[in-house]
């Protein structure tokens, strides 16, 4: 059986209690995108500064459960200062980490596709896939970031 320590790893609780990159950026020049999960009421606002193909700054506001909040905090730490290509790559990797095998509710991340060692702290979120309803919480920030990047590229 899935168990709580898998979900609420120390790193996650730490990012929940002390979220990184909280705050706002002036728009413009920054862009601002909102994400919303109507089922649980979680909200996230992502502010992005992109200069010369590099995500130079990111800030977050919003509220939600420990998973959505820590995931957004972890995300901000993982993508800040990276090139857009690297950011997109990280998003893809994270989404793969969150993919449940259709055939089972008990899935674990797909080792062939994602090498968790390349994910750093983000790997702490891999326990979420054992709790399928919480995947939406973990991916909210990432989907919002994805949308923000689409706006950047036009």
């Amino acid at each position, binding site marked *: *059986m899935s168990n*709580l320590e898998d*979900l609420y790893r120390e790193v996650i609780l730490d990012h929940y209690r002390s979220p990184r990159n909280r705050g706002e950026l002036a728009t413009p020049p920054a862009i601002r995108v909102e994400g919303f999960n109507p089922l*649980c*009421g979680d909200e996230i606002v992502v502010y992005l500064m992109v200069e010369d193909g590099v995500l130079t700054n990111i800030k977050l506001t919003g509220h*939600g459960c*420990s*998973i959505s909040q820590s995931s957004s905090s972890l995300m901000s730490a993982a993508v800040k200062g990276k090139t857009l290509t690297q950011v997109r790559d990280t998003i893809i990797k994270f989404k793969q980490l969150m993919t449940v095998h259709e055939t089972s509710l008990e899935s674990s991340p797909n080792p062939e596709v994602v090498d968790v060692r390349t994910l750093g702290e983000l790997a702490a979120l891999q326990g979420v896939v054992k*709790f399928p309803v919480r995947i939406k*919480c973990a991916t909210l920030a990432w989907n919002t970031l994805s949308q923000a990047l689409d706006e950047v590229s036009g």
Partner: protein
Amino acid sequence: MINDRPITYLDSAASSVPPRAVIEAMSRHYERRHANVHRGVYQTANESTHDYESAREAIARFINAPAGANEIVFTKNTTESINLLAKSWGAANLKAGDVVLVSEMEHHANIVPWFQLREALGIEVRFIPVGDDFRLDLTTIDELLEGVKLVSVTSMSNVLGTVNPIKDLAQIAHRHGALIAVDAAQSVGHSPTDVTELDVDFFAFSAHKMLGPTGLGIFWTRQEILADMPPFLGGGGMITDVSSTGYVPAKGPTRFEAGTPPIAEAAGLGAAVLYLEGLGMDNVHEHEHLLTEDALSRLETEFDGRIRVIGPRDTIARGGVISLDVEGVHAHDVAQVLDQFGVCVRPGHHCAKPLMKRFNLIATARASYGPYSLIQDTDVLLEALTDAVKLFG
């Protein structure tokens, strides 16, 4: 079983767990009596119709409908019942500027249909405020009733547990020339109901919250009002005649039951009513009242104020729905930890966003009792809550 723990079901406010008698009534219906209702001549069709119509009679008796089964319309849930009220009675009897008075503690089911009617007709939707004591603030009720044609309020809040003074509200509404509708989803399965004594005009509730099956709702109104309500959904069963140029709607409740109704579900509801009558609704109410009183006092003393109950502390005019706000822990996380103890509670806004906003909340974790709940359920709940508080430190 979850993590080798038995399930502690504390989510009856969302949907109750049907007893074996109800499940078996439905299986039996399908196995031995199934057939479409009405128009049949053969035996199983009669029995099927009999199952369906006796459920109508059982419900009429259960809520003491003055003119009996002729006043009971079967819908698919409370939500459809209220939509029927708004889209049939409301559309025919309300016009621009008329006011529908709801309350700040309503479920979306008793808000959105009125907003839709506002879009369609230009009516006004007005809210009775909720006080800091988690009860309707009726200090300005006479002013609030200005221009009101219909008061539509819940008999019991699905978030706060607050039981509203429906009989008083009915008197006040009628004195102002308004009718009164009751969203009774949360009360019918938990305390005695008597629409005649309450002197109300409309009543909406769901089978699945009173030990019955999903897929079946109930709408009650007085025979005189029902007789004048225009049809809502069109189709078979709700007509007396159809030609290529027009149709004549049926009289009575079937006018609002277009298509094949939830027949097996009605058989299940009939069994649920018998079951509840067997328990005695006074006993059910007393039982849940004791559980609630006990839980509230333990929540108060055992958590050093880290857990706040969003709802009245006194248990007079209060049902067994307990919404919790755990300091520093999101409701989603509370529910997740509780799940590891096999405890089923519901996190979220409980389809009552205006109410959540009123109390500046995003979500609560809600525990709720049913006739089958035991004090042991509360024990497990508190054990699990202790763990949640500890985990998030």
